[in-house]
Every structure is written in C-alpha cells, then in structure tokens.
C-alpha cells in the first residue's frame, strides 16, 4: 500500500470513529461504542506499524515518509501544506499514541461501562487521538498547532466530562484557560519564527537554524524558542502553568492515563525535540528549560508526598516526571528525553489504569487513607502496579531506570548541565521513590482500612489485559536503550535507541564522552538513594504507620505548606487573579462608568442625532440600495480610471 493511503488511514480512522460515535452520541451501549472506537484506534495502530516498518526498511539517511495531501493555504510567501511526516521522532510518537491509545480504549470499555454518556466519551477519545496524530505528524508548526489546539479542546471536554458536577466543570475550564495562556505564547513564538525564518516548516526551520547568528541575549531565536517553551509549559504542566494538571484528575481515569500522563502532556517535550536544532542554537533558552524542568521535578515530587488522593499523587508524579523530560531537553539530551517520554508513557499509563482499576474495584473511592491491603482482593492489579512502581522508582534493569539514569548522566556531564541540576534530579528521584512507595504501601500493602460496606473486587479481563500488556512494556521497554556502560556487560548489547534517533538529534556543542567510572558512580548514587528512600517509606507506612504522622506533627508548618501544594493556587488567586479583579473593578468604576460611559453616551447621542438624519436614506427599498452600490462602483471606477 502506498504511503499517502496509509497515512490517510492512520489519521482519519479515529476521526471516522469520532464521527460514528458522535452521530450516535445518545446511545447508551458501551460495548458497541467502545468497540467502534477501539477498532478505529486499532486500525490506526496497525497502519502506524506498517508505516514504521516501511520507515525501518529505508536507508538510515533520508529516513522519512512525507505526505502532502493538499495545499492548505497560500498567502503570498506564506505557504502551508496539509503535510504530514513520519520520521524517527514521530514514528515513536505514533506508535505510543495509537498503541497505548488502543489499550486505554480497551480499558475504557470496562471502566465506562455503566456511564450514560459512553458514546460521547468514546467520540471525544477518538477525536483526541485524531488531534494528537495531527500534532505529532504535522510537518509544520501550523499543522502542529491545529492538533495542539485540538488536543486542548478534547482535554477540556474530557476533564469536564461529568460536567453536571460543578467542580469538575470548573477543573475543565481551568485546564482550558491555563492552556490558552501557553497557546498564546506558542502563537507568539510562531510569529517570531516566521518573521525570522519566513517559514514554519520543521525541516526548513531546522535547516535554517544554524544560519541565524545569535548576537544579543534576547535575539529572535531565544525569544521565539522561549515563547515556544512557555507554550510547552502550558501543555506539559511545568512551572508556572502546571496548576491545571492535578485538577484535571476530575476526568475519567482512563482519560488521565491517556491524555494527562501518556500523550498530550508530552506534546511540549515532543515539540522541543522536533525543533532541537533550533533550540540547541539558543543556549539561554536551554538553560531556562533545564532549570524549570529540574525545579518542577523536585517541587512536584514534594507535593506528591503529602497527597492522599490516589490520582492526585499520580498527577504530581506526572508533573515531576515531565520535569525530568524538560531537564533532559534543557541539557541537550533530546534522545534521553524522548526515551523517558516513551517509558513514562508506558509505566504512567499503567499506573493510572491500575488506579482506575482500584477506583473501579473500590466503587469510586479515591482516598488512599481508606484503602490498604488491597493486594489480596486485586492480585492482577497489584502485580502490574508493582511493575509500574519498580519502573518509576528506577529499579535497575526496569525501563524507568535506563531512561532516568541517562537523563541524570547527561545532566551531570553535559556542558549545558551542571552538578546542581544533577543533584536536583537525584533529589527528585529520591522523593519519587518515597511517595510512590507510600502510594503502594497505603493502597495495596499493610492493614486494610477499607470501610466494611465496600467490597473491593478485581476488575474484569477487559480491564486487566491492558494492564498486563502495559506492565510487560514497563518492564522491558527500557531494553531498547541500554547505555553502553551496562550494555557491554550484557554481551555487548547495542543501544538501539541512540542509533535510531541519531540522525535527528543535533550534537551538544562541546560534548565529550562520559567515562565509565563517573557513570557507574552517578548510577549508584541515584539507585542507592532511591532504594534507601523506598525502604524508609516502606518502614513508615507499612511497619509503623504512626511515624509519618509524628513527623508531620513535628514539622507542621512545612507539612501544611506542602500539603496545600505550597499555596500556589492561592498565590495565583491572591497575587494575580484577585488584584486583577480589583483593578478591573476600580477601573470599571472610575474610568469606565464615570468617564468612558459618559463620553460614549454623549457620542451616542450625537450619533443618534446624525443617525436619525441619515436614517431617511435607509428606506428598505432594495433597489435604492442597489443604486447606491451602482453609484459607488461608478465613483470607484472613475477614480481608478482618472488616476
């Protein structure tokens, strides 16, 4: 089959699913709607596999499938094609999106079984996949932006899916508005880039990037990339625009898994990686990115420790892990960022789905203080969750280990990195191990605190199968990117990942190879600290559940600060939103009502007076109007001719 057909199927299959489910949005049968949606995404997945297989069979140089369906717009020099590209980077993304997407769709059939709006739900989900594919496949920033906005819309729709609950509707709104701030910056970034380069096409931008010499600190390149990065912080929930993501947990859990863990939130990382030759030319931006990423990683992890809602913990964990990815990007480790993106997609989707399974089995209970000891009720969920846990805390040879340690190694050694960034990363990893172990302990292990009228049960096969598949991926996905230092002890296992991405990644200026001892030491550090913190957490929450309370008691101010998420939401309200409202109110009263309104009334009276004079012209007589047009044309034409 030819590529354009495959590409069309890949992109349009979810859209067709959306149309079908959207047309029958009033239907209640979850099985039918779910099957349609799942099949649609599965078709997409198959065509993605076929495309990637074709891509692999191509020679390494020029490994790229580009399809342009039509010219979208052509305004003078500004030409945009509806063009789509599968290359090394987007190949990974489409596989993750459609693959994980299929599993999550499958899971949703079980999870959303009883919901009334199930057809609508699947329609949105399919629309999301469609938009996500547009985002990752688009060959220019503008096409990407269409998908970018589209996923924002779907995210909004799905967070507020149970919109009759006011709080959930508000959460959707929050996500949307926060994202808009980022999107505005994204648009500005596009403008800057278009003014500088005269194109928005990725390959052209990347090719042109080295030709623009950056003379000033805030030159066009830095400015454009910074704007784009602000856009990315909105979509990928980084400081300062991360606040929407924890609230986004109001949506159905599979949505959290798909959109707010595996795919959409990684769009920012993906965008930066796609433009990496551009970003690498702007070291100042890179520094900002790295700092923000590291800060987010630590910051979100500390909040994660104190949360009691199973999904909130995971949400902060997601923010933290995204911080890792940005840290990686910021130090120039684009490959590592993509690697972590993929492994994170697997284990975080797994954990979210696992939490969904728990919530489902606990009859919509989300508070981990009311769980505990679920191991014996939900064996499969437990086992798979353990796999995810091991992966995320960086247990050696699990997928999270490889990706996280690669990031840390780069953060330490890259000329753009520094030991401080590395230290922040390690602290983040330690904290991650702590709160994830806490989550495990409180949910699955220890004594059961389940209230007697709740009877936890294992979920049906349709929900556990995706869990199992994702668990397998979480364990083994890391093996395609084994670093040399470990690989040479495993029978010289090559680093497939690096080979694959190599042509797309621009080298870090001033990069020297890490010597093996350093790498071993770094690895040992992070693994050791994580292990210690995991054991501590285990001790705290399984062996002696009283200790953490005592500790919290003893450092109450700090605990409260962290437990209330550093009062960031409140700070935003107190520092930005309320003053803004007050300012608006004052300006409204003094300037608007007392000055402008009076002016406008006066002007209005004047205009009305004139209008009543001119009104005599507007007779309703169509032919008179036509006559005016005629006279106008005569005047205009005579002007043109006489000129």
């Amino acid at each position: 089959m030819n590529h354009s057909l495959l590409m069309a199927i890949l992109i349009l299959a979810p859209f067709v699913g959306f149309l079908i489910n959207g047309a029958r949005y009033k239907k209640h049968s979850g099985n039918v709607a779910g099957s349609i949606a799942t099949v649609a995404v599965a078709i997409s997945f198959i065509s993605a596999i076929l495309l990637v297989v074709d891509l692999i069979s191509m020679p390494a140089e020029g490994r790229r499938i580009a399809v342009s369906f039509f010219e979208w717009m052509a305004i003078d020099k500004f030409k945009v094609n509806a063009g789509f590209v599968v290359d090394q980077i987007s190949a990974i993304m489409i596989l993750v999106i459609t693959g994980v997407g299929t599993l999550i769709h499958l899971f949703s059939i079980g999870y959303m079984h009883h919901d009334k709006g199930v057809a609508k739900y699947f329609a949105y989900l399919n629309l999301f996949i469609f938009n996500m594919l547009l985002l990752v496949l688009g060959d220019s920033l503008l096409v990407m932006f269409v998908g970018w906005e589209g996923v924002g819309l779907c995210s909004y729709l799905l967070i507020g899916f149970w919109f009759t609950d006011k709080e959930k509707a508000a959460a959707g709104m929050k996500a949307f508005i926060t994202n808009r701030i980022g999107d505005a910056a994204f648009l500005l970034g596009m403008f800057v880039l278009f003014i500088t380069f005269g194109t928005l096409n990725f390959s052209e931008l990347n090719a042109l990037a080295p030709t623009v010499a950056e003379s000033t600190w805030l030159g066009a390149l830095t400015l454009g990339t910074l704007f784009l990065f602000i856009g990315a912080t909105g979509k990928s929930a980084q400081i300062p625009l991360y606040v929407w993501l924890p609230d986004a947990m109001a949506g159905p859990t599979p949505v959290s898994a798909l959109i707010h863990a595996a795919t959409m939130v990684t769009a920012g990382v993906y965008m930066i990686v796609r433009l990496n030759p551009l970003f690498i030319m702007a070291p100042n931006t890179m520094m900002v990115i790295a700092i923000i990423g590291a800060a987010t990683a630590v910051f979100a992890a500390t909040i994660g420790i104190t949360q009691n809602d199973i999904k909130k913990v995971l949400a902060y964990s997601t923010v933290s892990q995204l911080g890792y990815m940005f840290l990686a990007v910021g130090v120039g480790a684009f490959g590592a960022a993509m690697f972590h993106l993929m492994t994170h997609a697997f284990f975080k989707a797994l954990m979210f789905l696992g939490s969904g399974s728990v919530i489902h089995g606990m009859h919509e209970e989300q508070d981990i203080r009311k769980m505990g000891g679920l191991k014996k009720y939900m064996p499969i969920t437990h086992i798979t969750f353990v796999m995810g846990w091991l992966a995320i805390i960086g247990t050696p040879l699990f997928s999270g280990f490889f990706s996280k340690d690669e990031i840390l190694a780069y953060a330490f050694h890259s000329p753009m990195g520094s030991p401080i960034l590395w230290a922040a990363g390690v602290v983040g990893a330690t904290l991650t191990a702590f709160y994830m172990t806490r989550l495990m302990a409180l949910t699955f292990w220890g004594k059961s605190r389940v209230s007697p009228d709740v009877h936890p049960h294992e979920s049906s096969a349709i929900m556990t199968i995706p869990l199992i598949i994702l668990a397998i991926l979480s364990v083994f996905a890391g093996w395609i990117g084994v670093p040399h230092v470990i690989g040479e002890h495993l029978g010289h296992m090559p680093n497939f990942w690096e080979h694959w991405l190599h042509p797309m990644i621009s080298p870090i200026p001033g990069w020297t190879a890490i010597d093996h001892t350093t790498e071993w030491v770094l690895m040992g550090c992070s693994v050791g600290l994580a292990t210690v913190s995991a054991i501590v957490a285990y001790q705290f929450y399984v062996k002696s559940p009283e200790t953490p309370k005592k500790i919290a008691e003893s450092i109450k101010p700090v605990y409260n600060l962290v437990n209330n998420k550093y009062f960031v939401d409140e700070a935003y309200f107190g520092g930005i939103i309320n003053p803004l409202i007050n300012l608006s109110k004052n300006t409204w009263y003094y300037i608007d009502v007392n000055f402008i309104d009076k002016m406008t009334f006066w002007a209005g009276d004047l205009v009305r007076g004139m209008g009543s004079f001119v009104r005599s012209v507007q007779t309703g007589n169509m032919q008179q109007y036509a006559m005016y047009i005629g006279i106008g044309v005569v005047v205009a034409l005579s002007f043109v001719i006489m000129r």
Partner: protein
Amino acid sequence: MNTEFITNIGLTHYLVLAALLFVIGMAGVLVRRNVIVLLMSIELMLNSVNLTFVAFSKYLGILDGHIMVFFVMTIAAAEAAVGLALAVSIFKRFNEVNIRFFEHLKG
C-alpha cells in the same frame, strides 16, 4: 475605416459584450418592480460574469475560469431556487410580487 476592429475578434470584444450585458442586468435590477424580473436580471449579471471568466480562460490559456463558471452556475441556481421560494411563499400569502411591497418585511 479600420476594419481590423470588426474582423479580428479578441478578448476585448468579449469583455465589452459581457460588460454591456452586466450593465443591462444592473439596469433591470434598478428599474424593474417585479421580484421575479429582478431575480432574472441578477441571473443575467451572473451570466455576463461567466462570459468574462470563459473569455479570460481562453485567452490566458488556463482552465480555472471554467471551474469558476461551474461554481457560479451552482451558486446562481441556488440563488434562483431560494429567491423564488421566497417569492412563492410571499406571493401565496399576500398575492404580491412588487419589490416595494417587500419593504414591509423589514424589522
């Protein structure tokens, strides 16, 4: 007398002819009172535009003009259908086709 103008037919001839037809149609729109004749005059104007499209298409050697004619025809037919539907609906109710009567429809 220069007979070149008569024997050598070129783009100008078609354009002038179309312009005259257009103006005739416009005059119809301006001076006639019957809604249906008004609509017919509009069709005449559209037709004259089609003529310019085709003429340019031939003399510039590109086919896009033909496509435009196609589209214009569709639009014209749609316009006639809706316009006449309105006229029929008003005629059935008020037994009136004078355009001045239609002023009563305002606000």
